[in-house]
């Protein structure tokens, strides 16, 4: 027994070093999971308010840029509205519109108070929390395109797993051909994405638009992902190598919308049923 204590005393530095490192790696692994507790993230109240204050000060330096992006968004919305008007005029014999489907998606605006783009796993923090109706797993978009998914939230703040994350993957479509694919990040440049699983028979061209598919009930269908930039088709490969110019400019991102899908639970439970039935 005495020997054991002697041993522990002699190597206490190594032992404590080992214990602390194991603790750290346990935290890292836990943090990498899809959702996590808000306490140890930027959505914790103290960190959140510090970052919000710092962002308030920072804002004054970027007023011009923000104005510009808001004006652009306004222009796009006006355009969409005009198209919509035209549509209703041409369809005078109006169909009965399913009000549930029309109001399926609700958009909650939030301000980005903290973000990173230079790491292998990037996150954003916004100034909306569960008091505003935000839940884990909700999709987040900007005026330009997809941003990410809510990871953790506290009363007034939420942490968002950015699309610029090594594990982020969004089900998408090539708009022109309608083929299903998956979009993720290339891990280096904050403006480049990768499109996977496009089979070789599909005719993809540079300049094609990639949008969300809406199959996963997180993002509504047709939200911009980006524009195809480089298309490669290696010999004997089953799928294309496609590089995408991401629609969202993460460097200047300042306002985002969190998507609340009213029918998500219904859709998920229905699909869950089918998956279970097939499994048996």
């Amino acid at each position, binding site marked *: 027994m005495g020997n054991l204590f002697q041993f522990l005393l002699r190597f*206490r*530095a190594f032992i*404590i*070093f080992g214990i*602390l*490192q194991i*603790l*750290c*790696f*346990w*935290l*890292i692994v*836990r*943090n*990498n999971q899809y959702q*996590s507790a808000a306490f*140890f*993230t*930027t959505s*914790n109240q103290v*960190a959140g308010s*510090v*970052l919000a204050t*710092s962002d308030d000060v*920072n804002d004054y330096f970027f007023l011009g840029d923000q104005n510009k992006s808001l004006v652009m968004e306004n222009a796009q919305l006006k355009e969409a509205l005009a198209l919509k008007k035209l549509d209703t005029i041409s369809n005078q014999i109006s169909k009965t519109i399913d009000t549930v489907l029309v109001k399926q998606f609700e958009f909650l605006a939030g301000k980005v108070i*903290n973000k*990173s783009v*230079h*790491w*292998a*796993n990037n*996150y954003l*923090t916004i100034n909306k929390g569960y008091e505003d109706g935000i839940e884990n797993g909700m999709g987040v978009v900007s005026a330009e395109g997809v941003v990410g998914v809510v990871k953790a939230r506290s009363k007034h703040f939420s*942490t968002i797993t950015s699309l610029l994350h*090594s594990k982020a993957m969004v089900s998408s479509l090539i708009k022109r051909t309608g083929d299903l694919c998956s979009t993720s990040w290339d*891990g*280096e440049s904050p403006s480049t994405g990768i499109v996977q699983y496009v089979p070789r028979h599909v005719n993809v061209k540079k300049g094609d638009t990639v949008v969300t598919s809406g199959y996963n009930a997180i993002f509504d269908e047709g939200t911009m992902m980006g524009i195809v930039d480089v298309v490669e088709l290696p010999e004997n490969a089953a799928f294309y190598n496609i590089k995408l110019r991401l629609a969202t400019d993460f460097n200047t991102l300042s306002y985002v919308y969190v998507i609340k899908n009213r029918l998500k639970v219904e859709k998920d439970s229905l699909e869950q049923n089918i998956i279970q039935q097939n499994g048996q």
Partner: protein
Amino acid sequence: MGNRKLVIHLVSFIIYLTVQVLFMKNWVLYDTAFCFIYIAFLLLLPVELPITILMILGFFTGLSVDIFYDSLGIHASASVLIMFVRQYYIRMTSSRIGMESADPLTLRQRGIEWFSIYAFVLILIHHLALFFIEVSGLGMFWFTFSKAFFSTLLTFIVVIISQYLFYSKKRAK
């Protein structure tokens, strides 16, 4: 450790952390070089503290930074690592030069040569650990390595400048 020293270190901890999360966090040069000035706090902790306390301090310092970077455990792990290495490094180099090993670890006390090598080695170890744990693997080796290397240079330069600015002779007395 006297009370006065304790207060100085506590205040410097708060200042370094504030500077780190409010300013340095938004400052990335050429998309590759990051500055982690908070390491200076760990580098300057008194020599007479036992290694176990040093590692625990490193752990909590790293954890505080992690909360603001949403990188739970990564800074903590790298900080514990350099606190572990630090003790052996100081013991090894101080005895060789014949320096009084209880002297504070500032540039003024230890001289530019000793301090800059000490700071550079530990910052390099910290940054290599940090960036490679962050990408969790050796994929994209050179991309990650260049980030770690240029960040080391930037942090090192800022640490040396801060030594000249805030730990000058007049202030220390």
